[in-house]
């Protein structure tokens, strides 16, 4: 008969229709703003700048070397180097970025800036809640909006952050061994100071 397959299909959709009212596990939809999926460690959205300590201007790892600006395929990064210098994460006197803007309407989340950064200063965020009512200025993130603490980084990519911290600590130790004359390392390892930009991490799962 001609309608056999149609009847089978109708039975299947009817099973779905009534089943969705009976068994909750059929409805896999996550009610987004209230419920969120647990964050995935390997996820990435847009880049952010890591800083150590509590002061985002003082602890910023970026030295304004502009490698990421040059490597960025869609050219969404704008960096202006500072005139003066300040001690970096390792303790050397370095420039710092006077301006660091990322246009996330242009950014394609390729992570190349992260790959090329020799200072582990730029990392990928997982935050996707970036809606704004201004599609030009609202999507052009400046240095302050980009700066996120090392704790936040630990929260979103624990494994990776641990490796980075270990490498940085090793480098710092090496630098200290080379220059014992230097005074205390300027950047303390992750402190417990409250950070303004840090957001709840991990997400409340349903």
């Amino acid at each position, binding site marked *: 008969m*001609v309608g056999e397959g149609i009847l089978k299909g109708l039975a*299947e959709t*009817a099973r779905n229709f009534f*089943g969705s009212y009976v068994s909750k596990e059929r409805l896999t939809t996550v009610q987004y703003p209230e419920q969120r999926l647990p964050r995935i460690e390997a996820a990435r959205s847009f880049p952010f700048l890591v800083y150590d300590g509590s002061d985002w201007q003082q602890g910023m790892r970026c030295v304004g070397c502009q490698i990421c600006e040059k490597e960025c395929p869609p050219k969404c990064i704008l960096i202006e180097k500072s005139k003066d210098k300040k001690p970096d994460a390792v303790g050397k006197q370095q420039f710092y970025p006077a301006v660091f803007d990322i246009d996330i309407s242009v950014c394609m989340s390729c992570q190349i800036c992260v790959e090329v950064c020799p200072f582990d200063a730029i990392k990928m965020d997982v935050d996707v809640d970036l809606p704004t009512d201004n599609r030009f200025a609202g999507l052009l993130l400046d240095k302050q909006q980009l700066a996120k603490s090392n704790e936040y980084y630990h929260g979103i990519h624990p494994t990776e952050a641990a490796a980075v911290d270990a490498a940085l600590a090793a480098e710092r130790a090496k630098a200290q061994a080379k220059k014992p004359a230097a005074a205390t390392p300027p950047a303390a390892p992750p402190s417990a100071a409250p950070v303004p930009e840090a957001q709840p991490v991990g997400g409340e799962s349903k």
Partner: protein
Amino acid sequence: MTQVFVQLDQIFVIVKYWLLGFVPAGWQPLVSAIVSVVTVVIAFPALFALVTWFERKGLGRMQNRYGPNRAGPAGLFQPIADAIKSLTKEDIVPLAADHVVHFLAPVLLVTAAFLAYAVIPVGRNMIVVNLNAGVLFFFAVGSVVELSVFMAGWSSRSKYSLLGAMRAIAQMISYEVPLVLASVVVIMQAGSLSTVAIVERQAGYTGIWPHWFVFTPWGFVGFALFMIAATAESNRSPFDLPEGESEIIAGYYIEYSGFKFALFFLGEYLGMMATSGMAITLFLGGWAAPFPFLAWIPSYVWFFLKLLALIFGFIWIRGTLPRLRMDQLMNFAWEFILPMALFNMLVAGVWHFMPPGIPRWLVCIAMVATPCILLSMRLKRKKKLQLRTYQFAE
């Protein structure tokens, strides 16, 4: 007690006559018409709003989703949000479009869709005009829809619109023939083209079994054919080739935006509900209750319950079946539905002339089942595929 139920059943009629009491006698026919028309023009768009919500919810549940659930309780205010959105959107008319025709097409479509409700009895004594040729009026008005579809597709000056309109017209013409032929059996049996008379013919019960035309072999087949043709006629899935969003984006109304787009949407749903209402009138006993012990429930409640049930059927089909191909669509119309409708008329004649009893049932069932099986076998046979030859593209 029964008096209360009769009052409840006739409440709208009573209210209308109460209103007419305030009007001088000379104006009464005009005011009566205006009251009826205004009721239809308010009630059915309201139902349309409800049906869009119902459809989105139902489709969502069939795909294990929630459907709209943000605007209002269970997303019930979603249609209002949609209406506000479509009203505030910019009305874009293509520069090359034929402005007058482009404007008239949705207006004509909605007008024709509303006119169809004039002959559908939604309850006891509740019909706008009891035309002597009501069913013919319904189909005549339905044929105007094709013209508005053509106007929309042609005036937009867009390939997609024109292709969509051509598809829609070809499909509507092909399926209008079986639609009319499927309803002819009812007209033969009822001996009238008046929708009120057809509903009256289906009144009464044998035991608790209603005398609806759908509960006869020819009526059942006629109902199935009518509903299939109605699905195609209202361009709904699986016959939604004119829309075919993956091929021609949205068909004939692609160049419409804002409120005109909403009018097309409204017209499409009004058409679907009108054909469902006609199917109810022709086959499902109109506003009659399915069981005699439920007859106390007002007649219009039954009509709208049946309407919602049929619409749920449309939604169910839409949630289940994939879109057909153009050749499948046409083959189905001309090789299966049309011959079945013709056979069905023969069966209705046999039913009319045989004495009532078991043999009549057996003969008629055999007479419908045989062509159905044979035609479906013919439809299912493997087609020999051969290299396609192109006339112009070589």
